[in-house]
């Protein structure tokens, strides 16, 4: 994916560029708001990663300007300001996701990839499928190998989110935000327990596992049998 990083901290930016390149993406970098805005406007990007505090034009202003001119490129906001109201301000300015510093690279990568793929599916699919696991959104039914699997409502939503981002890494924070709509930091491994319950329902007893743990990052549902 073509990713533009607008970040004024040299070291952080270099690290990001290197890591994203290693992950197989095509990153570019601007170190202030004005240049960043210019680059964002004049090229096609899959995702923008914008730091809030920038010289010459701050991050939120860059985003607002882009949105005002009709640019809908997904934006991930990075910021040391991590309180809920900062998040709200950032999203209101036109950002699509918000990540507070310091962050784990795996978290950023997962979110960037999810944001980048968002454009691809414009129509709402009524059926999601990974391998032989099928989730019917309308009928609220889940089957694997043709056999029905009974899930609680929350488990259903959890599986739905994973399958919507099939093949992508989904972090625990992303799950908490999107499936439970909360933004706090749990101390216990609360998400892991829900995942292992889900796993025992959709993977146990079947030929191969679809729900994978990605060490240091999160989870991913994918058909790895091929």
């Amino acid at each position, binding site marked *: 994916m073509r990713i533009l990083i607008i970040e004024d901290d040299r070291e952080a930016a270099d690290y990001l560029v290197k890591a994203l390149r290693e992950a197989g993406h095509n990153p570019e970098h601007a170190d202030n708001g004005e240049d960043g805005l210019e680059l964002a406007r004049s090229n096609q990007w899959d995702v923008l990663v914008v730091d809030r505090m920038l010289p010459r034009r701050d991050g939120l202003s860059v985003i607002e300007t882009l949105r005002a001119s009709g640019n809908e490129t997904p934006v991930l906001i990075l910021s040391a300001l991590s*309180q809920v*109201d900062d998040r709200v301000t950032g999203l209101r300015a036109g950002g699509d996701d918000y990540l507070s510093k310091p962050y784990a690279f795996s978290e950023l990568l997962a979110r960037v990839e999810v944001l980048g793929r968002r454009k691809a599916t414009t129509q709402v699919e009524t059926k999601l499928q990974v391998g032989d696991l099928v989730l019917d959104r309308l009928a609220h039914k889940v089957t694997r190998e043709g056999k029905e699997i009974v899930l609680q409502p929350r488990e259903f939503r959890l599986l739905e989110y994973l399958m919507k981002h099939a093949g992508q890494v989904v972090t625990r924070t992303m799950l908490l935000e999107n499936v439970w709509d909360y933004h706090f930091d749990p101390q216990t491994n609360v998400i892991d327990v829900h995942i292992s319950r889900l796993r025992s329902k959709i993977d146990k007893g079947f030929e191969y596992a679809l729900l994978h743990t990605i060490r240091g990052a999160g989870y991913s549902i994918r058909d790895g049998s091929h």
Partner: protein
Amino acid sequence: MTALTRILSTTAFKLAVIYLASFTALSVFLFLFISKNTDDLMNRQVVQTIDAEIQGLAEQYAQNGINGLIVGVERRVRSPNANLYLIVDYAGNVITGNISYLPEKVLGESDGSIQFVSYTPMGIRSEDVDSRSAMVRIFELPGNFKFLVGRDLQDQLHLKSLLGDALSLWLAGMVVLAGITWFFVNRRILKRIDNLSMSSRQIMEGDLAGRLDVTGNNDEFDRLATNLNIMLDRIEGLMHGLKEVSDNIAHDLKTPLTRMRGRVEAALRHDMSQEEAQACLEETLVETDELINTFNALLRIARVEAGSTGVDLGPVDLKAIVSDVCELYEPVAEDEGITLSMDLEEAAEVAGDRELLAQATVNLIENAIKYGRPKNAETAPNIRVALKQVHDEIILSVEDNGSGIPEEDRERVCNRFVRLDSARHAPGSGLGLSLIKAVVTLHNGKLRLCSRMSADDSENTKTSGLRAEIVLPISAGIPGEGEGTAKWNKAHKTSTNT
């Protein structure tokens, strides 16, 4: 600044001057208005009287000529309170009338128009030798006679002087009133403002423990003093919080930082295998993450305690939040062998922040899971979450059947980084309760820690276990009096009638 200049610059003095000036202006206007209108009215009446007389006398003149006129005048002059008459011949000799002296030139203008003249009356009252004022009409009759009809303006002038006296008296009275106003306003009212001002100064320069006096008559000044006291409570709280945060940062964050540093330094000193180095780096990473979490939690607490701007207290459904959190933690509890039961009643909405309230609920439940295990390994651990509305308060309670918190520790545990010895084994930063307390305070609520009430009478149920309650008011109230004010009032036994 001399004493005089100081007095002149006070609001009391300015107020008094303003009152005096405006009332003077109004009074003068009023008096002039009355005076003029009365004057005009009386003048009109005099003119009417004169004209009526002229009418009558004209008829006499028409019938009987000058002699008839003279007879008419002579008859009228004899009645009491008579008008003024004068008939003179061409040479100026008086033929009849009741005027003894008149300025010469007056008779010259004899066109019949109204004139104001001073005259001397014919001596009925000998003591009144001063000239008086009159309104007259003078006609020239055939034969070069001059005929004057008029009326004395004595009454009018008397009234005018009466009004003048009244005005002077009134103005004098007003100066006195202004003086009293100045005295009253200065002494009682502005002095109170000055006192409040000086007391605030003293408190700010001192140790912020003092509070302003509230006299208890619930007037504007009392309200001002009460609200200023609440502000002082806040300031004291903020300063205290700030000190605590910096103390905590100094101690509790430097310790893991030192540890990390030591580890990295040791690793640099030794030759390590690839695996050892990897393990070391991973451990360092884990500790860094923990530090970051602690930092974030501290920041969040500090901002919530400061009543941070941007926290949106909109209406939230507490039942939905608690239900979500319980559902989130139910599997965790089950894995730990703990039964999590819910007893949530329908409750009114509270004014609150959804995220913060969720975080507080999470902390309560996490605490119960981590520390709420019964000592006796055979007793099944259970956690009971309840939500109830009692009048205009909503009570969220989380009960466990663990060892509880000893009464003497209950206040201390809400401070940052305090962990009871019985809890040191579990992972955590010791910030859970302090965040709950900060959130609860922000919502004008209360955090209560008490012993679990045993509902059932099965064997071995002493009341052990912790019951943690969050009590929230339904309506967002204005913050009430804080600790500082309560302490001060108690020490100074000031009564506050609210």
